[in-house]
């Protein structure tokens, strides 16, 4: 064998979702990433979240840029739509797609290189526009695909595999996103599947842009002693600040979440997110407070995780720009192209 396939196996009494699909129905092709790569775990979390939400794969669009992380769209939801775009250009592609058809679920997958270097401007404007999508930033502190150069998320003092030390300050995507009006900012770790799955579900339900910055170790180039993005380092400094549970519209909020203990945030789809603060003095609806906590945590090396900030009040791009409910492909040609006379009338208004 030169590679292997994951066989599809029907177990007895296998769990099924509302569509009658099994978890394995949400898999994609077998990953060709290095064995042990954190990105594969993020892929598994995405597949599980879509399975648990009973989403129809063909109603999902997967988009990505370039990098090991960006390759992973192939490894889940094989029946979904998708495109690998140009390095750093996924946000524009997703913005365009969301503009012409707002009825699909958009999943962007990117890396710290793809998003924070070549694609930084692209990502920033998708955040500002509040494009209705979930944006997975699989953050390993290096350019994995090109063999381990420091990326813009590398911490000062973190060392490369061959020993070189990073001396440039890191871009924290969460702080940056908060500073430009992001409405859903979360951080997680590929090793905490339970948290990751619930954040993904919450992010999909959120109206607008949902950024999930996932620490996702690169086993081949950034998992050594001295790296601040290794499994060992992340497990050591990992700190859960806020827990978020997505409650679908069909389910009632149960008594288990007594008042004071949990804070429900009503979502646009009729469901809600139940926030449980694990740090008493952390408030995930206070933008400035969240930014200052994150800045402080940079000093202590602590990795604050969970749903760090949420604002459900701002409209997503489609509402804001009054884009049509009907996807462009279903609009009659006469509406898409009303003809030369209408064009002339519009032009006349500007004369």
């Amino acid at each position, binding site marked *: *064998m030169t590679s*292997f396939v994951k066989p599809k*196996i029907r177990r007895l009494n296998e769990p099924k979702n509302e569509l009658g699909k099994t978890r394995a129905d949400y898999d994609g092709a077998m990953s060709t990433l290095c*064995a*042990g790569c954190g990105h594969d775990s993020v*892929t*598994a979390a995405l597949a599980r979240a879509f399975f648990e939400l009973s989403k129809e794969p063909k109603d999902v669009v997967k988009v990505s840029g370039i990098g090991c992380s960006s390759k992973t769209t192939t490894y889940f939801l094989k029946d979904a739509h998708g495109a690998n775009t140009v390095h750093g250009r996924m946000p524009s592609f997703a913005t365009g797609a969301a503009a012409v058809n707002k009825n699909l679920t958009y999943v962007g997958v990117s890396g710290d290189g793809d998003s924070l270097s070549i694609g930084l401007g692209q990502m920033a404007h998708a955040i500002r526009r509040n494009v209705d999508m979930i944006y997975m930033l699989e953050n390993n502190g290096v350019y994995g695909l090109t063999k381990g150069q420091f990326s813009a998320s590398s911490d000062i003092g973190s060392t490369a595999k061959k020993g070189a030390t990073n001396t440039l300050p890191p871009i924290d995507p969460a702080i940056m996103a908060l500073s430009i009006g992001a409405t859903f900012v979360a951080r997680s770790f*590929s*090793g905490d599947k339970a948290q990751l799955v619930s954040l993904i579900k919450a992010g999909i339900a959120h109206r607008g842009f949902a950024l999930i910055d996932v620490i996702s170790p690169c086993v081949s180039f950034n998992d050594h002693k001295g790296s601040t993005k290794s499994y060992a380092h992340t497990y050591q400094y990992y700190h859960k600040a806020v827990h978020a549970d997505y409650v679908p519209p069909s389910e009632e909020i149960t008594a288990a979440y007594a008042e004071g203990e949990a804070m429900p945030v009503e979502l646009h789809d009729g469901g809600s997110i139940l926030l449980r603060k694990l740090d008493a003095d952390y408030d995930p609806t206070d933008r400035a407070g969240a930014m200052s906590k994150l800045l402080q945590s940079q000093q202590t090396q602590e990795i604050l995780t969970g749903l760090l900030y949420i604002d459900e009040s701002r409209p997503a791009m489609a509402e804001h720009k009054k884009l049509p409910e009907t996807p462009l492909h279903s609009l009659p040609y006469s509406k898409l192209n009303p003809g030369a006379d209408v064009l002339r009338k519009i032009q006349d208004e500007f004369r």
Partner: protein
Amino acid sequence: MKATDTSNPDYFHKVVDCQWACPAHTPVPAYIRLIAQGRYSDAYLLNRDSNVFPGILGRVCDRPCEPACRRTRVDEEPVAICRLKRVAADHRDDISDRLPKKPEHSNGKRIALIGAGPASFTVANDLAPLGYECTIFEKLSEPGGLMRANIPAFRLPEKVLNEELQYILDMGVDLKLGTPVSSMKAMLDDGWDAVFVGTGAPKGKDLYLPGREEGAANIHIGIDWLESVAFDHIEAIGKKVLIIGVGNTAMDCCRTSLRLGADSVKVMARKPRNFFKASEWELEDAEEENVEIVVNHSPKAFVTENGKLVGMTFELFEYDIDDKGEITGQRVIGEETIPCDDVILAIGQENAFPWIEQDAGIEFGKWDIPVVDEETFESSRKGVFFGGDAAFGPKNIIWAVEHGHQAAISIHRHCQGLDLHDRAPREVELQSAKMGMFEWRYSNSFDASERREMEHVELVDRFKRLNIEVELGFSAEQIAVEVQRCLNCDIQTVFEAPLCEECDACIDVCPVECLSITPGADSEADLRQALSQPEAPEGQSLYVSAPLPLTGRVMIKDENVCLHCGLCAERCPTAAWDMKEGVIRIPHADDQMETVA
């Protein structure tokens, strides 16, 4: 909960469901791999080490391994383990020069084996090569026990039986045919170093109902009747035959009747189908031959006219059956008389030892079954051992073989004056199966093929003679597919907690989602909540690792559904999971430490 102790040899053994279920612990997956490589002789010999009669058992074994087979957890039907055993036997070369030879010197110890069935033959097989002088006493004119006298030749050809018995006789075993032992005391007086009783359960049960005496000429006891057929004393039967009972003996009686001239054969069962004793495959084979199986009929009387049997009367029963399938109530709802020419009684066998005197020093318990130690097979009299159907009542060939192995160990130890209970322990040897990237020493990819169906001789042809073997054996194409259905359960998943860095790769790749990393808990039930399918199927217990270095959590694995596909080991960056071939060493007489002359 404590970490699983994998150093207990039974831990990895139990994972190999088929081998664990086989009374003689035949290493099934290992021999299937040899067949896959075309190494039929090697597969045959590996089988022979544990079950002694691969050709015979490859046809007629009760196959407890198959219902146990792991494959049934992800597929409709188990691997055709038994049929593959026959493949090894059918395609082997002449292996006689690879078998133990008659030793040049005797060790001076004389062993008497009473009855020439599979139990005695196994004892001889294990002891003769060690220098013991083994003598088998058999009352019939041919060796083999019920394998010859009762199992019909259309299921077990004489040639197959003869060959495998001859291998053992060639080791220098003395066989005395037509020599019934009529006195145990006389036997004991002859100064044997040990005596083994392998005389089976020779008495067929009778049915004393009105008309039994008048109809006697046409009422037969199943096992006696089959024996008479086997030795050509009976060559015909009436046109209409009723078989009473629905166990495996009944199946052989009905199919034999068809071959002796009957054209309407009914098997009469007292209860509904779910309560039949016969194996499903034997029922299918009988029904394929148009035997009618009549349920809910309980025998009431034999009907005779002018001193001749003409039919039988039955009470018709109705049963109440609960959700669990158990009978909770029953009533008679009528009566029916069915005409017939002959009745064959197949309602069970019993032990009988008329030749063992009450004062021979051998204690008997309930139902005239001797008191026998379940580990050593020694009776209450030192140096006298029992095995096979004679020990604990009727079982089957593979149990007789296992009893024989154990009795041989005991006899060997007894003759050296060693403690019978202090036997060599089982052991497991583990060897990594990794060859390289994506390469393992076994075919680890899952093959979804369904079980291959055995071809049978056409109905019109198979009744021409009594000894036409019905099953044709697997074709080359069938072999090639069936071997790939085995999941290689003996290629064990072995975990080393100190190596794990909790990347989740193994958990994510596992096609049956049977792994998880979770905080420790007090009970298995609590730990199972972390699995994708927490409800526990029956069978294997949960594997629980030692605490993991980074977080102190534990790795758990539901062995019930693991397919041994090796993907966890393939994806593990640190080789914390490895696939290792586990060879389970089941000691036999020649593995006991002490040397022999």
